[in-house]
């Protein structure tokens, strides 16, 4: 009871703090110096229509490489922990029943969701979203497939190959920027093209597609590993 009260008081205090912040907020009349630089220089320098993407992939490219590494480490550690757990034998347990709606819906929806994920990261330099968002959408497509068929197993070798190759090429493109253009992860190793075209903004579409594949493979492997573990535990306890 006391614990509940403390939690409630904490939530109310946090709410009061944030509402005080909100009350004292007034938007800046104009962009500050850094923001103005990005807003003005992105289109002529990098040829990317989406300023957010230009910042994530090029100006702050090293941070993005770090984020992808963190995600890779998380997925790897989850895989390691699951592999260290009990290794029950896989017996011929009956497949748990799946609703007709889910089974049929996933058959038609999963390809569309995967396609949407690819669309989001291929158009990352033109429209909102990009590698991380596209990768997460791809992983949610994999999740839908897993929900429709809990015993579905993805090819670990394929996922591993996609993950490793896209990571390697990401770093290689970054190094190419060091040699051919202004620095690590510079996108001007390819022509920047016309603003707003699909094949424009230099290497940004390439880099973001690689990030999308990498993130999608990592999140999917994480989900698949947990689901496999679940079905294995299920098999183990079945008589």
């Amino acid at each position, binding site marked *: 009871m006391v*614990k*509940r009260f403390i*939690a*409630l008081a904490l*939530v109310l205090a946090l*709410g009061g703090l944030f509402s005080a912040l909100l009350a004292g907020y007034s938007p800046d009349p104009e962009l500050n110096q850094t923001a103005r630089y990005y807003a003005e220089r992105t289109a002529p320098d990098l040829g990317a229509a989406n300023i*957010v993407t230009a910042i994530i992939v090029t100006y702050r490219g090293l941070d993005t490489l770090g984020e992808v590494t963190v995600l890779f480490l998380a997925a790897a550690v989850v895989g390691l922990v699951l592999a260290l757990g009990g290794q029950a034998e896989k017996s011929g347990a009956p497949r748990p029943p799946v609703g007709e709606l889910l089974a049929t819906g996933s058959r038609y929806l999963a390809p569309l969701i995967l396609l949407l994920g690819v669309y*989001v990261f291929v158009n990352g330099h033109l429209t*909102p*979203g*990009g590698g*991380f*968002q596209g990768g*997460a*959408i791809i*992983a*949610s497509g994999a*999740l839908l497939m897993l*929900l429709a068929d809990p015993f579905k197993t993805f090819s670990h070798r394929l996922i591993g190959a996609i993950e490793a190759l896209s990571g390697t090429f990401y770093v290689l493109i970054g190094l190419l920027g060091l040699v051919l253009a202004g620095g690590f992860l510079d996108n001007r190793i390819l022509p920047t093209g016309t603003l707003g075209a699909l094949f424009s903004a230099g290497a940004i579409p390439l880099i973001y597609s690689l990030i999308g594949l990498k993130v999608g493979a990592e*999140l999917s492997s*994480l*989900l698949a590993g*947990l*689901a496999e*573990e*679940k079905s294995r*535990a*299920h098999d*183990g*306890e079945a008589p």
Partner: protein
Amino acid sequence: MDASMDILTTALAALLCLAMLGAALLAVARTPGKASDDDEAAEIRALPGAILAAGLVGLMASILYLILAAPDVAMTEAAIGSGLTTFLFFFVLARIRSRRERETEHG
């Protein structure tokens, strides 16, 4: 026109914030207390509700991000915050459950 749209957006955002607070409170309330209630089964039965409420918070946060003109963040929040995380919790919950059942079976 512009002013009325502004008021409408602000009202919608305020409504979403309230709903988020409600869902967050629900998640906290459904999360079982510690040793005081010794009924472990009730504790486990309460958790899925808490997980769903937490996913609801993420979903409403993603709509809020969309209103605040951050579609990138909204996409990420909708896919990861309310989708993948919720199911990750459910996978882990199922794993803990089956392990606990096995432990009680084998003593």
